[in-house]
């Protein structure tokens, strides 16, 4: 166990478990109390605890190949369930809890606006389930435990997406479709784990890695990898398995979209990295071939096709949802290169994408809160009416395009560099083409916002207009400024991503 940095040593010793247990336990409490505000308080407290634990774990994993292993319930791994934190998932946990906390600040006004008063505490309970599940997926070192956490987070997600039905009944069908596809994905994942268990007789991921390395060319293991990749690919919205995503993001409550866009697909993407590089070895031919001949072409077609689809959307959040699918393509392209530089670039884009999509969806949430607008055409003139929120939105959009001095530029720069190291000039062409498409769809929104006179009345019932509450402005600007800050001082993020890539590639058997 590593030294404690600022929390008491007794808490640090159990930090990996507390990270998951606190939100999980508080979610049952939140479900039992009737007041929505009190439930929000509980959610905020658990996100705060998770953030403190995540920072502590993050500092603890900074060393060379430093791994924090936590034996759940005192049962030694590989027999018991192990929580295993290294540079890769420490970065993810930090991202998860910090964006979760920022999104929760935004939640207080936004959820009060969109969700029926009597259902708010249940809504926060479901959110805490989702949050605990995502943290669990990121923290666990046990393959079957990962499935259970994946399903916990998914069931919470289905519930909170469906809560958007008070604005638009299509949230219900979107959530149902996500449920059907998500369950198929999770079941594929279990089939894959089953095959691995047949071949290795263990469920601990580090232990599986060692056992697989001893039996090269085992067909059962290869089939297991295929099932796992497809199953988690569905959750990560790997093109063409992304069909659940646009509707789910477009019709969910604004807070849910903000949180999910910044975290949910990222966690699934982490699982893909973990399995491709850590559990299975990149040295075995089938992983290398899968990444080069399956993941890379899908990533590139996803980047292009989803960006094209984004061009023709009329709903602002649906447009950004398609753009998210394209961004997942960028991350997977980094993964497909199967080099340390590629994985680092992919992870860097993962972190930065959470910053920009968080800012963009939060700004759209602010527009919806003040003017009740959802379609791009209705954003007309909001630049005059809400200059600060629009400016934050603009920063997010520029970062999404990859304009210099924004976070998006840095990650695309590293991605292109990694592609050039591999002599993949066609990948560079694809990255640039998708960025040009991003220019077009961001241009559409930005022009509508800035080059129009301010609207005189909102689309809220009885046409009145609300001011932006401070609880929306603060997290929005924190994210927007983070986009600018990490665009000019990229060192911290790049270091984090490179440590993560090193941990992914070297971590497993060490």
């Amino acid at each position: 166990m590593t030294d404690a940095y600022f929390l008491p040593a007794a808490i640090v010793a159990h930090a990996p478990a507390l990270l998951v247990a606190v939100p999980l336990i508080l979610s049952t409490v939140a479900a039992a109390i009737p007041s929505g505000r009190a439930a929000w308080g509980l959610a905020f407290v658990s996100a705060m605890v998770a953030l403190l634990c995540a920072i502590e774990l993050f500092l603890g994993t900074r060393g060379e190949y430093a791994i924090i292993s936590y034996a759940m319930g005192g049962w030694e791994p590989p027999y018991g369930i192990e929580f295993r934190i290294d540079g890769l998932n420490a970065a993810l946990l930090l991202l998860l809890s910090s964006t979760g906390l920022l999104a929760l600040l935004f939640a207080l006004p936004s959820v009060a606006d969109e969700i029926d008063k009597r259902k708010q505490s249940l809504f926060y309970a479901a959110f805490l389930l989702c949050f605990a599940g995502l943290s669990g997926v990121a923290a666990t070192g046990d393959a079957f435990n990962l499935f259970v956490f994946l399903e916990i987070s998914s069931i919470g997600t289905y519930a909170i997406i469906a809560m958007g039905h008070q604005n638009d009944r299509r949230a219900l069908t979107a959530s149902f479709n996500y449920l059907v596809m998500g369950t198929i994905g999770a079941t594929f994942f279990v089939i894959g784990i089953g095959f691995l268990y047949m071949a290795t007789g263990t469920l601990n991921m580090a232990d599986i890695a060692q056992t697989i390395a001893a039996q090269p060319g085992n067909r059962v293991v290869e089939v297991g990898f295929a099932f796992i990749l497809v199953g988690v690919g569905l959750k990560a919205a790997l093109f063409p398995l992304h069909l659940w995503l646009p509707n789910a993001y477009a019709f969910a409550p604004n807070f849910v979209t903000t949180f999910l866009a910044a975290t949910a697909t990222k966690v699934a993407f982490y699982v893909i990295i973990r399995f491709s590089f850590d559990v299975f070895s990149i040295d075995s031919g089938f992983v290398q071939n899968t990444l080069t001949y399956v993941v890379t072409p899908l990533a590139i077609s996803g980047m292009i096709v989803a960006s094209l689809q984004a061009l023709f959307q009329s709903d602002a959040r649906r447009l950004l949802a398609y753009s998210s699918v394209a961004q997942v393509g960028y991350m997977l392209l980094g993964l497909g290169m199967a080099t340390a530089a590629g994985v680092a670039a992919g992870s860097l884009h993962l972190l930065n994408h959470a910053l920009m999509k968080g800012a963009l969806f939060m700004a759209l949430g602010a527009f919806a809160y003040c003017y009740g607008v959802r379609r791009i055409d209705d954003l007309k003139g909001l630049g005059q009416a809400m200059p600060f929120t629009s400016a934050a939105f603009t920063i997010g959009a520029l970062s999404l395009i990859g304009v210099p001095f924004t976070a998006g530029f840095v990650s695309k720069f590293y991605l292109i560099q990694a592609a050039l190291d591999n002599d993949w000039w066609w990948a560079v062409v694809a990255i640039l083409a998708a960025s040009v498409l991003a220019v077009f769809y961001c241009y559409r929104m930005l022009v509508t916002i800035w080059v129009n006179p301010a609207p005189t009345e909102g689309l809220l019932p009885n046409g009145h207009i609300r001011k932006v509450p401070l609880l929306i402005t603060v997290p929005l600007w924190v994210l927007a400024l983070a986009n600018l800050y990490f665009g000019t001082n990229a060192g911290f993020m790049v270091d984090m991503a490179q440590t993560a890539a090193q941990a992914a590639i070297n971590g497993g058997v060490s």
Partner: protein
Amino acid sequence: MLEMLSERFVYVVIIVLMMTGLYALIATGNLVKRMVGLTIFQTSVFLLYITMGKVFGGVPPILDYKDLSNGTLDPNQLYSNPLPHVLILTAIVVGVATLAMGLALVVRIREAYGTIEDDAISEADYSLELEKGV
């Protein structure tokens, strides 16, 4: 061929169930029937796990306390693997939760749309979009 099928009869059953479930899921437009297909699909995976826990000639892994304390356990005794059963207990709980969530959504969809047929739902949404000009 026939020999191979009879040897791996359980796997044949699992694959048939799995494909039945997936087909039902894709082919029907009725949301409740889709949940049925999904459940059949999941159940086939449960069977896959149960199958891998079976060891031929193995007995249930229940140890006699007297044998355990006197050290008279037979080291050559084969036991079935209990771990997959435990895993599947968890997976069944997860499956039931998903089914409940799905059926709850179907109830709400029926309240909002008045139908649980996929085609009718899409049509209702489409005509609403045309009306609103979204």
